[in-house]
């Protein structure tokens, strides 16, 4: 019998050792999700290239008219796939991931992964002007959801697992681990607690490691040396940001309008719109084949001064039109790569103009193309941190940070000022879903304790105050409760009713601490969100507000009534007076 007890104890110890907490399981799964998502993204990348080589050939192929057919047929095939076979794969990957987070407890159907993979490879591989990153993001979210469900994670973890997969997907697609994490944090999650950040980081890093293992550790672009030649160049970079911001507003608005118009047309017309868009892309491709597909080789060429500035500007504007048509017509694919393309070309074009006409020495256009990469992205997706770090990551040059910050922040503010609705929010609204925008949530002002506190310490009693005098003082204030200051910087409270009963039942000359056991009261600081105080006010009738540097110094008190008043609720359900 004693032996059996020993064994069972040992067994339970072992179980204890091998049982992982939800957080540990979550972190371990982050690695698995990163690997799994990256494998899929690598295959996706390769399939797109194979389709592109076989359907479009290369830029030096003589028979250029063959560029007309693949995008037309590709757009039609991809549309049929998402409308007939993989309906869940329609729409923006970012919004699908947000929906998984906010609506469906982390559930992303597995068919989305297959649908996105097949439809987007066909659409992008045949030259339609869209990018693979948004589908990669959604595939990552789908994989993460599948893994989370199979490991039976709890609801809160399941909600966060889709963004984790999304970060892995986008990091593998861009080969930029920091930008992947930042984008998900800026656009989707907007929560910076340690658990979320570390799991998203782990997924992102493991995804990039796997992607580099298979595709090589070459950066997405080969960026030449970058230097700031003259301080006045920062003005030119600001102008690049300004133009990027203005164009991004124009772009978002035009997508919104065209989608509205096309949505009003009969449903069958969808099967005409997409191939028509594809055909137009083919037409553009006859003269400017660089605008077909995601366009990364063209960005690389711009970064090597291949194009003169009029050509750069033309490429940027034609790509804008091409992507506008494809995206609005519902051809599946993402917007990330085209925004980088447009930004790089517009930036490079303006840089070329400055290089020729600016009165001070400036860098060649390639430097502006590099900085421009993020400006259009920042203006459209309202993710300035992501765009700055992405520019830094693709260039691997710290000097680029300053111009990138100037250009991206200008673009972000111009775009936000002229058109406050973020791109993904606009898309979600058009699709009939109201998804929260991380940017909008960040701009909501938070009420803090200092906004509600009642200043002064007129109602504070000391613990050595006689009970009868304490009652008199409380009655003078007309409040139901009063703070009691105790030795050692501690606080308590007492009600008027309790004081009256004490005076009635005992000797009124006794001090408060002699007469009654005073309950301890937590205190709050003025910078804390009012929400924190509100939770405490569920258990206590009032709270002392003290100084962080001198906790014994009382700044004021806070009651439920004060909170109601701060929130603008004129008739509180239960008056504390």
């Amino acid at each position, binding site marked *: 019998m004693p032996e059996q007890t020993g064994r069972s104890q040992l067994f339970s110890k072992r179980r204890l050792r091998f049982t992982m907490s939800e957080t540990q399981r979550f972190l371990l799964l982050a690695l698995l999700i990163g690997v799994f998502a990256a*494998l899929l993204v690598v295959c996706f990348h390769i399939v797109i290239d194979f389709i592109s080589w076989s359907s479009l050939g290369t830029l030096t192929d003589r028979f250029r008219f063959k560029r007309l057919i693949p995008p037309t047929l590709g757009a039609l095939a991809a549309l049929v796939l998402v409308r007939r076979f993989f309906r869940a794969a329609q729409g923006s990957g970012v919004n699908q991931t947000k929906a998984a987070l906010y609506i469906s407890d982390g559930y992303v159907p597995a068919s989305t992964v297959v649908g996105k993979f097949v439809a987007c490879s066909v659409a992008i591989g045949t030259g339609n002007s869209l990018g693979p990153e948004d589908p990669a993001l959604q595939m990552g979210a789908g994989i993460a959801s599948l893994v989370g469900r*199979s490991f039976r994670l709890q609801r809160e973890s399941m909600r966060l697992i889709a963004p984790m997969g999304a970060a892995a997907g986008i990091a593998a697609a861009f080969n930029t681990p920091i930008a992947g994490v930042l984008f998900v944090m800026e656009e989707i999650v907007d929560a910076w607690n340690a658990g979320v950040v570390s799991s998203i980081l782990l997924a992102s890093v493991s995804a990039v490691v796997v992607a580099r293992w298979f595709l090589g550790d070459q950066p997405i672009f080969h960026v030449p040396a970058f230097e700031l030649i003259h301080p006045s160049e920062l003005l030119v970079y600001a102008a690049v940001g300004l133009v990027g911001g203005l164009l991004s507003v124009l772009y978002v608005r035009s997508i919104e309008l065209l989608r509205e118009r096309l949505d009003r047309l009969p449903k069958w017309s969808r099967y005409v719109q997409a191939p028509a868009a594809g055909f137009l892309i083919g037409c553009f491709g006859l003269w400017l084949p660089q605008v077909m597909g995601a366009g990364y080789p063209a960005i690389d060429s711009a970064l090597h001064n291949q194009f003169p500035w009029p050509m750069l500007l033309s490429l940027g504007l034609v790509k804008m039109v091409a992507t506008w048509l494809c995206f609005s017509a519902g051809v599946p694919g993402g917007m990330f790569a085209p925004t980088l393309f447009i930004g790089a070309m517009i930036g490079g074009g303006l840089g070329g103009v400055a290089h020729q006409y600016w009165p001070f020495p400036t860098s060649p256009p390639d430097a502006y193309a590099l900085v421009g990469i993020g400006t259009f992205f920042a203006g459209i997706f309202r993710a300035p941190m992501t765009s700055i770090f992405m520019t830094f990551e693709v260039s691997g040059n710290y000097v680029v940070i300053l111009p990138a910050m100037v250009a991206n922040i200008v673009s972000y503010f111009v775009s936000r000022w002229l058109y406050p609705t973020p791109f993904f929010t606009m898309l979600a609204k058009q699709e009939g879903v109201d998804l929260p925008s991380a940017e909008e949530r960040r701009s909501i002002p938070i009420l803090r304790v200092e906004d509600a506190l009642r200043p002064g310490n007129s109602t504070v009693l000391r613990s050595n105050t006689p009970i009868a005098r304490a009652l008199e003082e409380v009655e003078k204030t007309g409040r139901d409760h009063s703070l009691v200051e105790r030795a050692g910087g501690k606080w308590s409270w007492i009600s008027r009713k309790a004081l009256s009963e004490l005076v009635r039942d005992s000797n009124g000359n006794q001090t408060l601490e002699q007469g009654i056991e005073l309950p301890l009261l937590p205190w709050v600081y003025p910078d804390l969100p009012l929400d924190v105080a509100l939770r405490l006010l569920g258990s206590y009738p009032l709270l002392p507000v003290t100084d962080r540097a001198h906790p014994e110094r009382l700044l004021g008190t806070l009651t439920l009534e004060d909170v109601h008043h701060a929130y603008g609720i004129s008739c509180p359900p239960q008056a504390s007076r």
Partner: protein
Amino acid sequence: MNAPGKPQTKAPSPLVVLLACAVLFVVTSLVARAYYLERQKLSRAHFDRGQKLAFDCNYRAAVDEYRVALSFSHGDSNDQVALARALIELGSLDEAATYLGELYQKDSTNGIVNLLLARIAAREHRSNDAAALYYRAIYGFWPEAGAKNRISARFELIDLLAKAGDKNRVLAELLQLVSEAPDNPDVEKRVAKSLMAFGSLNRPAAVFREALELDPTLPTLSAGQRQQRARDLLDRTLTLMESCTFGSGNPQSGQAEELSNAAKKLLSSQHPGISEGFTPQALALAEQLWKTRSAICGPVPDTQKPVAIVLAKLSR
């Protein structure tokens, strides 16, 4: 948007997920291998096409082919060099410079990269940069045919210096060339051509011949000959110095006197036969004397050009 609904299907077991991940790993490995080979094949095909076109001097088409080759090879340095070379021929110097700049960042001692950058600098009339880059190319790393490429790079440098009218440096480079490639008929032919390029054949040729006879660093010389030439060179430099500083009252003449005394001491201390350390000491002293003399008295008369050429070579 089709917001995903709540799960309708049963979730697969963890084992199935892990198995799927393993299968995907194998599939990805196979696909990635095929992808890599295909890229290599395409890159090679376009590169070869580019080479043929460049050989036929059809640089525009060659550039297009090299660009495609480069897009498949993900920044292969051979493709980049070939593209840059063709771009220089086409006159697209900015673009060529960005590719070469990337390669230069990776390896600043690469001979061909420095040579091409030097050609760009020369085309942009940045003579000093070009000369510095030519030197880097000459003393840089060449994976194959190093000697031939270095000679060729030096001839380009000589052309650059000749265009700038820097006769002394041209002759010094020619001297260096002859000393590096003695008895090379091709080099001799090109040296003669370069001398002719000065307009008058006789005078430069005579100066060059005399400099060749004075140069103590030629690799074909024996140790004794080298010592004798070092002695002669020091002697001639000392004479030039004394004729120039005699009674000049220049503030640097104190230093000149010190150097002259040291030179005299060294010359008088030499014993018959080969004395160890004499040659380098004499050359170093000759060089210092020459520098001081140049600072005080300026250029030498034409009759002393050979000394100037040899010392220019030494000082470099």
